[in-house]
């Protein structure tokens, strides 16, 4: 190795340091609030790996995180910031549950159809921001944020209408369910379902689109340099819309996993699921690559599920983990400072 740390090394170290800093500041927050950070993190650890049930539930939690992370990462790679994953997830969840409950079909048609319905709903929800960006140059960030709230309220209203004033939908039929006796019994009857396979398949799909197809090349090119791409004859508007639609489809799938796998129905919500926003953290930590997203999702999905054990085992509010996740995004965003620091210490070492 040369005297200076290689670029590749630094690229790997930045997210690692961001995570460590996040956990460290999280510990300081607990300490300052009069809690025992060691007990807190032990409770977190047990919440994740404590027994086979916890492990099963953790993997279940990771599933939508992978898909939400893919959604954010895909948009990022094409120069777009999709903060609307949350809303796309909510409409995807609802659409998949609707198809899962309203039709009676053989499983080999019903399940794929319900999953596709989720993806289609998410794609549709992302289409509008894409269209507005492509045709009218309205920034996608503000539109996708508004679409989140519209999704939340409209889906709540739809659930009310469907259930005749109630607060949850019918359950999906067995033929549309992702539930798995096998995976469930393997993990002490957790809610682990086949969705994890769908999520991993989508990781491959994203890699394939971006790296092996002309479309993917165009999408990346437009994100990298709009003017050069236009000069090269690519249609900017079409690519922006397509990118948002693909991103939204991933997000809709995340919702379908919740609807067809974890819950089997949907209920009205007072606020967001948070999965869509955590997807931003997943994508950033994974440097917007498909493989990186898996790592990010494993980390944040585990933290998120494990945190539920903290109030019981250590009397610490689980929100402390949300603080840690937010801090990790913050530190990744501040990557420039971390890089500067790393280059400095590696130079100092080189001088000796």
């Amino acid at each position, binding site marked *: 190795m040369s005297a200076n740390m290689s670029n590749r090394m630094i690229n790997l170290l930045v997210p690692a340091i961001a995570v460590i800093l996040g956990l460290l500041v999280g510990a300081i*927050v607990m300490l300052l*609030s009069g809690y025992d950070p060691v007990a807190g993190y032990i409770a977190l650890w047990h919440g994740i790996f404590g027994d086979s049930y916890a492990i099963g539930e953790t993997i279940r939690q990771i599933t939508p995180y992978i898909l939400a992370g893919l959604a954010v990462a895909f948009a990022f790679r094409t120069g777009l*910031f999709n*903060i609307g994953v949350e809303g796309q997830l909510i409409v995807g969840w609802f659409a998949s549950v609707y198809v899962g409950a309203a039709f009676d079909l053989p499983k080999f048609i019903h399940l794929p159809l319900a999953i596709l319905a989720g993806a289609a709903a998410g794609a549709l929800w992302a289409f*509008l921001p894409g269209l*507005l960006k492509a045709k*009218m*140059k*309205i*920034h996608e*960030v*503000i*539109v996708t*944020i*508004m*679409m*989140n*709230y*519209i999704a*939340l*309220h*409209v889906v*709540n*209203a*739809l659930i*009310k*209408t469907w259930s005749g004033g109630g607060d949850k939908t019918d359950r999906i039929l067995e033929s549309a369910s992702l539930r798995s006796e096998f995976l469930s019994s393997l993990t002490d009857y957790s809610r682990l379902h086949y969705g994890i396979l769908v999520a991993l398949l989508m990781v491959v799909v994203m890699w394939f689109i971006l790296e092996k197809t002309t479309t993917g090349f165009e999408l990346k090119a437009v994100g990298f340099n709009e003017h050069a791409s236009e000069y090269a004859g690519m249609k900017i508007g079409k690519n922006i819309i397509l990118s948002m639609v693909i991103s939204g489809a991933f997000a809709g799938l995340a919702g379908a996993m919740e609807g067809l796998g974890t819950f089997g129905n949907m209920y009205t919500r*007072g*606020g967001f699921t948070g999965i869509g*926003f955590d997807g*931003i953290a997943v994508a*950033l930590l994974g440097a917007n690559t498909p493989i990186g997203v898996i790592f990010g999702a494993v980390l944040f999905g585990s933290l998120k599920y494990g945190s539920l054990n903290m109030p019981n085992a250590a009397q610490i*509010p689980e*929100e*402390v983990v*949300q*603080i840690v*996740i*937010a*801090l990790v*995004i*913050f530190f*990744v*965003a*501040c*990557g*420039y*400072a971390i890089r500067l620091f790393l280059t400095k210490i590696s130079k100092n070492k080189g001088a000796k």
Partner: protein
Amino acid sequence: MGFLDILYFMVPVSIAYAAPLIFTALGGVFSERSGVVNIALEGLMVMGAFIGILFNLFFYDTFGDWTPWIALIAAMVVSGVFAILHAVASISFRADQVVSGVAINMLGLAIALFLTKMIFDKGQTDFIKKAIPNFDVPFLSDIPVIGPMLFTGIYGSSILAIVAAIITWYVIYKTPFGLRLRSVGEHPMAADTMGVNVNKIRYIAVIISGALAGIGGAIYSQTMTRDFGHATINGQGFMALAAMIFGKWHPIGAMGAAIFFGFAQALAVVGPSIPLIKEIPTGYLHALPYVVTILALAGFIGKATGPKANGKPYIKGSR
């Protein structure tokens, strides 16, 4: 119900909803005019809303009727300090300002909820005893038509918001500081050449924006919800951001847009008691302000172009 009755009913509610948006949108104007994209307004508002309620609950016995006003100052200070995080990331550390803003939003909500759980041992705070009072303006409220519409049952904070918009206009367009602020957001290198400390101005602007968003949040929580929970702010900060864009980064324009969005929100609240509108299920009415925001951005403003250097960190010596 006659048309005038509906107006007497709607306009005060609209103005009440507009006040927090005006303050927060003004904060956005300061920050973005200096060249720092501030999507963190939501989180800063959440922090303000939480601190406002917390201060009100703890100090009511000390300050009595003045509590809500002093709570606004407390919220202003805390959110101003909290905004320094966004400033450090986006000005000194050259972070992607949208990403940093997202992090601040998540952080603000997480800290506020963590502290709520810690202090109150439940998901939301207690209700405050003393909210921001509303009153009839003497004499003016007796004017026919305009009186009952604009000067009856108005919150003191709403008057404050309009005053703040005018002061912001004066500061940004009529003072040396305002000139520097705008120049730093349009062409930082030129400003630097003229001896303006670009980063210092930007730090000040982001801190001011935090302070104003803090006031906005505390007004919202102390007039509308009167407690704090996870859904208290629920997008108000983003709506203020949209108001700022809709108002084309101009303080008075932002105020006008904020009043418009206030009206959209009032429609969702008051709608069920207005003929015609009450036929629409309330769920859809709740989505209305956000639909209106998109329509406003898509339909009316045409091409919105912000300050030229908005979102770009200033790196000395680079072109």
